């Protein structure tokens, strides 16, 4: 089988030791080999694509050679520049350039620092399981609703005018919908900015999971006791709005 002509060409990169840190961007290419020759750093085994990539082009003060036979030619040159450096010790680039983490500052506690909790638009799809609607809208629907649609739903009244419904499937009425993350209801399409901290946050504001936390888009939350929810039915609705302690003019 004929050999691919381009395979014979190897690419070499020469860099002064001072600029060693600039190799960080190509360190992830595990096919590369690296060798140290006094104050020079040699990198070899680039593929054709790698040598023409932005990562390599953006390394300053480099010299690129290509090899043919035992000679090295400067990039874009037809005259041999030097021999391939012999007797070098080639190692994997990620072994030769280890990562060092900054030392831990034992005197730093970060007590003063605070993080702010915010909601951001989220890409992850989540099913809506709760909705806020007004008493009027619910009244319109519920008076003629099939009983089966009201089963499995729980409801409570917020601030004497809005209704919070929880359960699946939701009713076909207009309203703001929410999805549920454990015991927190978040507006659909939104998630915590620092979603990894959600569990910690819920434990802080809802210890023992006694209630439902309703988070709104203005970044405020409402704590609702779980006992406040009642199964939704026409009689439950009528008993509530006709109750003497409940004046909304409905």
């Amino acid at each position: 089988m004929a050999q691919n002509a381009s395979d014979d060409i190897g690419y070499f990169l020469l860099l002064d030791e001072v600029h060693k840190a600039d190799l960080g961007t190509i360190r992830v290419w595990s096919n590369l080999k690296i060798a140290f020759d006094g104050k020079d750093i040699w990198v070899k085994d680039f593929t054709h694509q790698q040598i023409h990539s932005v990562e390599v082009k953006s390394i300053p003060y480099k010299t690129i050679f290509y090899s043919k036979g035992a000679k090295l030619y400067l990039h874009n040159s037809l005259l041999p520049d030097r021999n391939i450096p012999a007797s070098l010790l080639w190692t994997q680039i990620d072994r030769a350039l280890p990562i060092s983490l900054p030392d831990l500052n034992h005197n730093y506690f970060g007590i003063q620092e605070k993080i702010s909790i915010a909601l951001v638009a989220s890409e992850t799809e989540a099913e809506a399981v709760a909705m806020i609607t007004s008493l009027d809208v619910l009244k319109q629907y519920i008076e003629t609703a099939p009983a089966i649609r009201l089963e499995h739903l729980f409801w409570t009244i917020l601030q004497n005018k809005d209704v919070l419904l929880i359960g699946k499937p939701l009713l076909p009425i207009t309203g703001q919908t929410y999805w549920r993350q454990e015991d927190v209801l978040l507006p659909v399409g939104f998630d915590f900015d620092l979603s990894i901290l959600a569990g910690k946050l819920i434990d802080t504001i809802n210890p023992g999971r006694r209630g439902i936390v309703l988070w709104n888009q203005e970044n405020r939350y409402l704590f609702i006791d779980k006992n406040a929810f009642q199964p939704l039915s026409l009689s439950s609705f009528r008993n509530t709005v006709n109750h003497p302690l409940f004046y909304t003019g409905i």
Partner: protein
Amino acid sequence: MINNYFLEMIKTLRKQEEVVLYGNILHVNEKYIIAVVDFLEQEFRNEMLEYPDPVAPEFNPEAALWAAETIYKAAQLLLYRENKETDLEILLPDYKAVQTSSTVLSVDLCLRFLPDILTQLKVIDSEDAMIGILERKIAYWHYSGIPYTLTSDQLDFETMFAERALKHLYINRIITYKKMDLAMLNSCRDEVAGHLGIFADHFWKEFNKEKQVDGKY
């Protein structure tokens, strides 16, 4: 000491859905009837909170009392049978008022428990003459008889479905008891499908399957 056995029986039936009988007393004393009617009216008002229309129907004392007496006597006759078969018709008279939401729902307060008594009767003796008599009542007031399997050609849907709200309740009950034979009737099928909406598969899988086998939808 309990005096009003009739009231006590109806009360435990309504509250605990159990039948407690206090001896073989088929005759109901006139003076105890008022208390029963009052109790049933209260129960009726509570149930009308679920009526799917802002204007609830009136309580019909005559219809409710008939149903209460029927269920009381049927329970008595189920346990203590000392009468001849010919007496049964006299003990269990028919009641044929026009089916309006008022009469149907008043009757239903007590008559809804008749299917269970019928099932018991059939277990004891499937040849019992009482079964036919009671089935006739439940075929007429068939809103109460939805859980019981009746032959559909006996049932009159025209008057039953004349009122929108009553029809709505009827369909609700078909779905609650998942009565496929009723749901597949021409008079009911579209309504049942409408109630289930796009969640038919979630609420009642079998109905959705039948509906699609039929190919009409």
